[in-house]
């Protein structure tokens, strides 16, 4: 079962405060997505911790109805 991009975005922004999320449907099949996420909450965390926060936001869906999600995370650049 596939998920739409807007649902993925909503789940992430609801859980990670101030997250700027861009979702790309890599194959146009509603099954293989890439998520680019910039959030202040990622500051001071390593990549594993950042990705764990994203996975946490997606919960059980990851690996089930959400088959493939490439994730790229970063903290906003300092002013």
């Amino acid at each position, binding site marked *: 079962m596939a998920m739409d991009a807007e649902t993925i975005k909503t789940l992430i922004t609801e859980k990670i405060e101030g997250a700027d999320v861009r979702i790309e449907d890599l194959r146009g099949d509603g099954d293989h997505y890439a998520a680019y996420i910039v959030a202040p909450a990622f500051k001071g965390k390593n*990549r594993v911790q950042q990705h*764990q926060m994203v*996975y946490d936001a997606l919960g059980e869906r990851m690996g089930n109805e959400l088959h493939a999600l*490439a*994730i790229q995370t970063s903290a906003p650049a300092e002013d």
Partner: protein
Amino acid sequence: MQNVVFERIQSELDGSDIVLFMKGNAAFPQCGFSSLVVQVLSQLGVTFKDINVLEDNDLRQGIKDFTNWPTIPQLYIKGEFVGGCDIIREMYESGELQSLLDDKGIKAA
């Protein structure tokens, strides 16, 4: 039950510098994401222990719980979880993965 799986995972991590939990094995990866990590490690020329989670359902779930990471592949270096496919690719392209191996004293075979 979980303890048994966790102990097995820990003993694998203790037994090899680099351990890759993957779908399929290094010679025949059965998933594109696992395959990519195998290619990266091959490019870096390091030897690693490949563990096929498809052969064992307890392990397949157990490694996800152990790492608190919902996807396969999972790469461990010197007992430490480094990342899944996306992180490994990013670290390889930026040269960070090579630096990490250097820091850990792991040389190309």
